[in-house]
């Protein structure tokens, strides 16, 4: 009886191990096309960029891959570049803040509508998102132009025509318009999952409507705010198309500056170094978001238990898909 007993668990363990191995193999097989694609078209170019950032620019504007150095990174400390980064960071911050201010009430409105109305509103939020970005930006350019409808309206009201195009204001308007969707969707998901009996409890406990919002609704939707801010800040920091078209490339930003290094100035190492800096900054932001996201999830767990997990996301996905 002894040997039989002993051998059977071993056999079982071996079988389990084999099964686990098979599962792992199957998983790798499923992931491999996507992984291969990312490897070739994402990881490899990124690697190349990193390599180039340590290269040297020859006097003729060609990139010499011999003689590695950190000259390009040192050049990032240049006043002009620091100024450009600062301006880009300021514009991205302004865009993010305006997106929160505009997007939060909007997402709140959508999330508190009846279910079928919500789906329609969400699709309407998504429509501009599905439209070609270039087309949208040119539409804004037409709207804001001195011969455009906004100016005509202002003139007919007696305020005279205005010149807003090719100013930082125009760029900001365009940026907010371009990235608002990225703010509204995570905010919507957070608000849609909100357990409104909690705000009722706050009202019942002598909080005014505003106090209930600040003490309960806002903290409980923090994960959505943080996610939205990352999703808006990161792309607007490196944004290239919007400032180029609406700013007339007068106010130089990081995105345009990098493009210029690669195209016109033919200083690939400098462009590459600046790109690497942006990527690192973005990774840091995403990591911070991940951390705060998991923290906020702790708080919402009991609500999820009651309502079924991830119902919010599921609904967003279906609403977006339909």
């Amino acid at each position: 009886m002894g040997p039989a007993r002993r051998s059977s668990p071993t056999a079982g363990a071996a079988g389990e191990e084999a099964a686990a191995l098979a599962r792992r193999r199957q998983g790798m097989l499923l992931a491999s096309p996507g992984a291969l694609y990312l490897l070739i078209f994402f990881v490899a170019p990124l690697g190349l960029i990193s390599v180039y950032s340590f290269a040297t620019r020859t006097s003729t504007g060609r990139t010499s891959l011999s003689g590695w150095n950190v000259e390009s990174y040192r050049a990032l400390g240049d006043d002009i570049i620091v100024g450009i980064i600062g301006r880009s960071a300021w514009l991205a911050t302004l865009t993010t803040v305006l997106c929160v201010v505009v997007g939060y009430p909007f997402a709140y409105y959508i999330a508190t509508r009846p279910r079928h109305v919500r789906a329609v509103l969400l699709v309407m939020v998504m429509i501009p998102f599905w439209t070609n970005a270039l087309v949208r930006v040119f539409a804004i350019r037409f709207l804001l132009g001195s011969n455009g409808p906004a100016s005509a309206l202002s003139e007919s009201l007696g305020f005279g025509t205005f010149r807003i195009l090719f100013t930082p204001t125009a760029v900001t308007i365009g940026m907010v318009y371009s990235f608002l969707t990225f703010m509204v969707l995570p905010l919507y998901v957070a608000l849609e999952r909100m357990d409104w009996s909690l705000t009722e409890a706050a009202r019942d406990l002598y909080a005014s409507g505003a106090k209930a919002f600040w003490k309960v609704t806002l903290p409980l939707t923090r994960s959505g705010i943080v996610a939205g801010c990352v999703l808006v800040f990161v792309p607007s920091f490196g944004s290239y198309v919007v400032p180029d078209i609406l700013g007339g490339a007068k106010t130089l930003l990081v995105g345009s500056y990098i493009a210029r290094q690669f195209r016109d100035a033919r200083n690939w190492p400098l462009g590459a170094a600046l790109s690497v800096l942006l990527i690192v900054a973005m990774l840091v932001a995403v990591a911070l978001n991940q951390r705060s996201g998991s923290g906020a999830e702790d708080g919402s767990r009991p609500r999820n238990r009651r309502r079924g997990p991830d119902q919010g996301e599921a609904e967003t996905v279906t609403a977006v898909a339909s």
Partner: protein
Amino acid sequence: MTDPVAAVEIEGVTKRFGEVVAVDNIDLAIGDGEFFALLGPSGCGKTTTLRMIAGLDLPTEGSLRIFGEEVGMAPPDRRPVNTVFQAYALFPHMTVRQNIEFGLRMRGIKNPELRQRVAEATGMVRLAGMEERRPDQLSGGQQQRVALARALVNQPKVLLLDEPLGALDLKLRQEMQQELKALQREVGITFVFVTHDQEEALAMSERIGVMSEGRLLQVGTPREIYDRPASRFVADFIGRTNILEASVESASTVRLDNGALIEAETSTPEGSRVAVSLRPERVRLQPRGTTAAEGSSLDGEVRDITYLGHAVVYEVAAGPVSIEVRVEGEVGEPFAAGDEVTVAWDRGAAAVVAD
């Protein structure tokens, strides 16, 4: 009302949500210090009534007074009432202490009074030592206590409880029933609680208001509601009962539709159609032929026997009607399926209910 001022006074209150009438012209007075239950099936308007007292819903029509003060249209933060929500609605991003402090802080109460009152409340619900935990680190029973403490710490004039025990398992629920009763005696304030569980309502409350389809059908003590139901719905909803169709013969007799004449007190005029409610545990089963000294009886045949451990339930066919008889505390089963029997009951066991 004998009380000079009722704790809660509802007068002609109606609540409509669009076309739907959730609460239909209710009049109700709840006394100071009373433990009152609003009982009814889901969708009967009991929760809406409670929410109107809390101020979370506003009445479409009517007047609502708390200790004489009209509050019908006042926002929830301007009412001297607090609520224990159905799923507790504890703030997940706050500790137990922060949850309990919330109401006091909103009213600007500062230390040392704040600290003292929080300590009192946590002690009262036996949560001392749990103050720094978060709601998701507590069991269902503990969460329930936090919800109670969070409401009671504000010393409301009326405490509203929305299905307070609904989320707990049976054993814990029975424990909490006793605790809630003790707590109410201790603090001495009016408790209004909503439940769909009739046993819970009978066991806990001094008076019960039975609701159905937005209307308040009957208000009375548990005994009145159980023994003298005012309508067929109340008789059927509270406990188990046999409903027999009948018409009134005189002030003390009704004739069942199967022709039998039984004794039952009624104020309904002669000839009107009524129903007779016979509780399964208030009737006896006898061998056919034995006659009772007083009361009424019906002859029938045992159809089915269900053994429940503490009781045996016989289903007796008496002509076209089927009567459930519950026998408790008897050793063995004196009757078998197919036996000819007589169902008998004392005078007063049968209640005549209007349709």
